[in-house]
């Protein structure tokens, strides 16, 4: 009861409290973000609509609207559930370059966030963008057509972006006489396809969205199928934020000082777990300290896990700033100036070898001194074809050299510290998204003509005020980055000298 509900505990109040529990649900069992892929022809809208109709908190008048429409779902007497989804999508066409529509629905036990990227064209960047927010993807196919090239493309994009669970909804089973043989053949194709990728789970479910078969209730038409029904499966999967994770990582967002003795490194644990008393290391300076407190406004924690937003106070001040990635000593991220990555090009403006780009990692922003496209990935064959250009919707392999070292992981090792955006230094636009495939600990062996922007050079002029005022390293490096960008725009390869206590 809140401070405002000061009335004595009458029966009415109790009834109200029960009502509110019934209406809000006290504790939804976590959240799952679901990306839906497939075309309207495959019955995508009908499937989502059916799920909303059978399992969620739709209001009576929304139901009445659908029933009044008089439209029926193809070949059945059922209402046309796609109206629940399509009407919304049409309204939402606003000409945003990359469209992802978010929809929030609650079943009795769980929040589902349904992420939909409408439109067929330019699906690669739309899908990649949507997939990056998803815990799971439902790929929808028409049972009459089986696993097609499009399914392969979708799987390739999902895998690159890091979606670990995929469901193949084999829809329109009613149009193939509920044939088990046909479903098993599709299932076999799908499992074979998924062997190419790093999914944890790949499940095929035979369904009829229009009839509701195996969507929210078990189909009587397919007694031979004993696997999970779609909704049941979605409600039982581990929630977002509870997936098993590897080594501890916390990218430092900002440092909180209360003007007395509190100095908290604020961030969200992106991987693994940290406990009070453990030693953490700043990989760039290699300095370490013990975790004294894990502070939140609701009280200190003994430990923090992936997804927790906390402030960590260390027992000694090791001058960690934004951009650092805290880790355990035995599982450090790579501190690197060179990396290989897979990128998906999002911008309508193609890659320009002379362009000025920045790499935005979890909390760092680093000037890029060289970006080289080496190959394009053919999504149909999954072959790599040598290339040095790259444009919208391409997935490319590339080599990147950074103007200064930063802490990174491979994407397969730790997703959040192994992914990045490429940023146009002039417009600030996000032009590509990347996942790190290789990061080497070696300092780059760049040939010859690289201009080294030394600290001494900056101290004398541009940063003289920081020297005298004892200003921050963060401001120093911000200015250094900007100078590096300007020089690069002028065609000069440039590196920024590392802070004095830096060691590889």
């Amino acid at each position, binding site marked *: 009861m*809140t*401070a*405002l*509900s000061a*009335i004595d505990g009458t029966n009415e109040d109790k009834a*109200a409290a029960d*009502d509110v529990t019934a*209406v*809000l649900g006290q*504790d*939804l*069992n*976590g*959240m799952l973000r679901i990306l839906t892929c497939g075309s309207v022809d495959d019955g995508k809208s009908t499937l989502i609509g059916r799920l909303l109709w059978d399992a969620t908190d739709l*209001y*009576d*008048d929304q139901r009445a609207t659908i029933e009044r429409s008089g439209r029926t779902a193809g070949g059945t007497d059922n209402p046309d559930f796609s109206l629940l989804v399509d009407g*919304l999508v049409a*309204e939402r066409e606003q*000409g*945003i*370059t*990359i469209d992802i*529509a*978010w929809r*929030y629905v609650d079943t009795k036990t*769980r*929040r589902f*966030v349904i992420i939909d990227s409408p439109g067929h064209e330019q699906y690669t960047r739309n899908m990649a*963008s949507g997939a*990056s927010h998803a815990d799971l993807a439902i790929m929808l196919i028409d049972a009459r057509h089986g696993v097609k090239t499009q399914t392969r493309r979708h799987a390739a994009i999902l895998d690159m*972006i890091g979606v670990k669970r995929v469901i193949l909804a084999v829809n329109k089973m009613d149009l193939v006489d509920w044939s088990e043989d046909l479903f098993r053949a599709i299932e076999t194709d799908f499992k074979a396809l998924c062997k190419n990728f790093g999914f944890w789970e790949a499940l095929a479910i035979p369904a009829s969205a229009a009839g509701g078969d195996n969507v929210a209730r078990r189909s009587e038409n397919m007694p031979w199928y004993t696997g999970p029904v779609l909704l049941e499966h979605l409600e039982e999967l581990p*929630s*977002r*934020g*509870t997936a098993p994770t590897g080594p501890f990582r916390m990218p430092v*967002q*900002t440092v909180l000082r*209360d003007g007395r003795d*509190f100095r908290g490194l*604020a961030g*969200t644990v*992106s991987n693994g777990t940290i406990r009070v008393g453990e030693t953490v290391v700043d990989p760039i300076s290699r300095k370490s300290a013990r975790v004294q407190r894990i*502070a*939140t*406004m*609701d009280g200190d924690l003994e430990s923090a*896990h992936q*997804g927790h*937003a906390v*402030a960590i106070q260390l027992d000694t001040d090791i001058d960690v700033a934004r951009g650092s990635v805290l880790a355990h000593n035995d599982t450090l991220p790579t501190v690197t100036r060179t990396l290989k990555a897979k990128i998906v090009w999002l911008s309508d403006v193609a890659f320009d070898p002379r362009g000025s780009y920045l790499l*935005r*990692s979890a*909390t760092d922003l680093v000037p890029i001194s060289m970006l080289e496209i080496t190959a394009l990935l053919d999504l149909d064959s999954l072959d790599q074809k040598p290339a040095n250009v790259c444009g919208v919707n391409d997935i490319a392999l590339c080599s990147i050299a950074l103007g200064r070292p930063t802490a990174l992981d491979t994407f397969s090792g730790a997703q*959040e510290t192994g992914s990045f955006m490429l940023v146009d*230094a*002039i417009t*600030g*636009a996000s032009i590509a*998204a990347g996942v790190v495939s290789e990061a080497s600990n070696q300092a780059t062996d760049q040939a010859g003509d690289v201009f080294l922007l030394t600290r001494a050079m900056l101290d004398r002029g541009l940063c003289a005020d920081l020297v005298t005022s004892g200003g921050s390293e963060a401001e120093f490096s911000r200015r250094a980055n900007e100078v590096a960008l300007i020089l690069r725009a002028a065609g000069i390869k440039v590196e920024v000298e590392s802070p004095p206590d830096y060691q590889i």
Partner: protein
Amino acid sequence: MSAGISHLDLLEAESIHIFREAAAQFRKPVLLYSIGKDSTVLLHLARKAFWPTKLPFPVLHIDTKWKFRDMIAFRDKTARDFDLDLIVHTNYNGIEKGINPIDYAPSVYTDVMKTTALKAALDEGQYDAAFGGARRDEEASRAKERVFSFRAEGHRWDPRRQRPEMWRLLNGRLGHGETVRVFPLSNWTERDIWRYILREKLDVVPLYLAAERPTIERGGQLLVLDDDRMPLKDGETPVMRSVRFRTLGCWPLTAAVESTATDLETVVAETLGATTSERQGRLIDHDQEGAMEKKKQEGYF
């Protein structure tokens, strides 16, 4: 916060993350505070993000001078309790011209006293980022809104300029003349707002709770008289009724509903309980709210 993480925990952590990213990336942010329930949640999350330090940005209220007195009292108490750097901005130019919600169409009034006022306040303060409480579930046009929503010079929202957002990465590097609106509540629903207010035991403006208030019926709506600035028409006599508000704004433009819900649990049950007819009643409200939102989009949000 260990096993069995609730969806509110996940939403809270995401919002804190967004607050910290924005505060770190932008030169001079400000939090837009409208005193209502969404602002209450927004402010609470901001405090969590920077606890135990003081909020690293000011809180801005656009005061039209037609807010309910209870709202202003609540605002000032909140600012004192949480040691906020509260900035109140009023378009006095509009007041001098006599723009008010009684004699002018709501669209004109809102444009002058809210939208224009907000733009002026943001320009005066030279803020490059403004936190707002908008949610994607509010209406269809918001469903594709970004967490960092970029504005061209003159606070224009240009769909072509909106940046893709992937994973948890937020790119706040501004182009020339650009500013940004930051929406930490993007993934919250209206139900979540109420759930969270109950869970965190947050104080809200008493107007959300039913009480005997002087009302008149006009155009099928119940209006609460907050002071004597609104002339009564022939046949209108103030009547004491037990009413509460679903949304809060300028008092001559905000309709009350009859209710006896004097505690928050009952209000929430009434608001979201939604038998068909009740909800349809609410949809009318919602449409009006939608019209207001459109005004906001012209520069407000």
